[in-house]
């Protein structure tokens, strides 16, 4: 299935200055029981977002109407732990298109990219700048430009470059999907198998 194309995005952002946000927090295991990709966004950050009586916790940022947007700005080492792709699905289906952090866990990063959710890794200094800017003005607009690989604070033009694998970049910009690519290599794979011990 082709993924949604991504070129550039301007949006306000939701700040989450917590470090080591693991995928068990993004979506707890007890909500992974579906056999299709459906409704995972409802349980995004479930135990931080709702209390034990399923009432929204007012102090959690997703329940705070001050903040909204398609960009989640999170503390260092986002997405550690379990390989569950449900974490990327939940974030995407909730409406996020970009996650910004100073560091991402490997499996989460792959999962995000495979679903058109862009992980933007920036320096700890620029991350701090973003947190301060958003806290000062929740209406702060941020631009994430995949083509130029830049993230920009639109109010003052402050910006930083980020890196992305050129292959993945092309996939995102054109909406390509890895399976189509792998299937196109069928002959090559078969040739490789001939030489297996």
């Amino acid at each position, binding site marked *: 299935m082709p993924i949604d194309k991504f070129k550039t995005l301007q949006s306000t952002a939701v700040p989450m200055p917590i470090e080591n946000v693991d995928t068990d927090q993004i979506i707890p295991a007890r909500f992974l029981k579906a056999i299709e990709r459906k409704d995972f966004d409802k349980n995004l950050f479930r135990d931080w977002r709702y209390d*034990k009586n399923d009432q929204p916790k007012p102090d959690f940022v997703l329940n705070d109407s001050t903040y909204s947007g398609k960009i989640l700005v999170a503390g260092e*080492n986002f997405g550690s732990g379990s*390989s569950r792709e449900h974490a*990327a699905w939940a974030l995407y289906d909730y409406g996020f298109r970009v996650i910004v952090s100073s560091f991402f866990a490997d499996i989460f990063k792959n999962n995000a990219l495979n679903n058109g959710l862009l992980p933007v890794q920036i320096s700890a200094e620029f991350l701090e700048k973003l947190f301060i800017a958003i806290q000062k003005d929740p209406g702060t607009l941020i631009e994430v430009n995949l083509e130029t690989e830049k993230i920009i604070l639109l109010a003052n033009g402050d910006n930083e470059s980020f890196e992305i694998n050129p292959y993945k970049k092309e996939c995102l910009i054109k909406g390509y999907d890895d399976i189509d690519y792998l299937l196109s290599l*069928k002959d090559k794979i078969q040739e*490789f198998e001939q030489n297996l011990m």
Partner: protein
Amino acid sequence: MTPTTLFDKIWDAHVVHQVERGPNVLYIDKHFIHEVTSPVAFLGLDKRNLKVSRPEKTIATPDHNVPTIDQHLPIKDQLSRNQVDQLTKNCEKHNIQLCGLNHPWHGIVHVIGPELGITQPGMTIVCGDSHTSTHGAFGAVAFGIGTSEVEMVLASQCILQPKPKKMRITVDGKLKKGVASKDIILYIISKIGTAGGTGHFIEYAGSAIRELSMEGRMTICNMSIESGARGGLIAPDETTFTYIEGREMAPKGEMWDKKLAYWKTLKSDEGAVFDKEYTFDASDIEPMITFGTNPGMGLKISQPIPDPQNLPPNSRQTFEKSLNYMGFKPGDKMIGKEVDYVFVGSCTNGRIEDLREVANFVKGKKKADNITAWIVPGSRQVEEQARKEGITNILEGAGFQLRQPGCSACLAMNDDKIPAGKYAVSTSNRNFEGRQGPGARTLLASPLVAAAVAIKGKIVDPRENF
């Protein structure tokens, strides 16, 4: 020839194609699947009208969702039953071998792979589960993947993957009495942090690692992911070959000789260069326990909880949030803290040696009244072996509840959950908030520490007071 690392030897031998300025197309020798991360991948195949490319290279078992009592009855939780049934249907449709509930080979995916001899040196192994790194103990390149990648493997027997960097962690010297492989890995993660291994594949080396049994090595490789590493591996040696020989799916006869000759070449060459190296002294390691909400927040069991005063603001906030969740304070001693549950099991420490270790310690003793103690074998074969050796009787005699194989309380996806606010000393791999149940507080430790805590009812150094 340039000296090469073990990791490079295996990885490079499996590269089918190098995408220009992009990832490698990596051929996968063995693919394990379970009920949670595979259904959407099969749906993807259906949508494209694809068959599984090499069904004989995939093996399935349901483990995350399964109840650990009354496994002969239908699963009560409808959603869990549905997911397990879906795995059965998908395997039937695509001709994939399934070790389902009640199959003599059923168990946790990372326990059955090695015990059946499926896991072998030099292989590339993936599974939609981050603890796939377990199989690296055999000198395999094994790592966890997401569901999109599961679909890639089903469709093509390959995945697109950027090649990780290489790290070597050497642990030399002799381990102290009462110190187990679990303590080694908890010690390593407490030193390098939960992101210390990110972007890397770790090779564990050194005399302390060499002296470990295969099961001890599996515990270490299993938790590689908890340091953020893509995976971890250990060069195969006589310990490895002896373990594999004769197992159901191990090569036999002439094929065994041929494979063995190849396996013996699988080691890092003298002078091979790693992107990062760490060396630790085995004699500095003590029985470990975690005090916070990630596996890097661990310490020697006799030490107090550190003070976060000098951390940068966001880190300090995260640390304080974590201690607040655990109900602990900086400076608190771990020894003497009351505990409610003891859980021995999981793909980290649910093997026969783990059960033996616990049985050996609790023999003739009784668990404390305040403790609920669950012991969950990693597979049917482990369960059977424990029965044969009389371990079952010893454990039950000490007041442990012996349950049936599955992931159990490691991740609170089935009926085995730790209640909110309760403390559990657990031999599993993650102490994340809510990992063992909403509000549950997990302290990771070795089977020996878990056994001692079960008897005393509070945190105790297993080397003392017995």
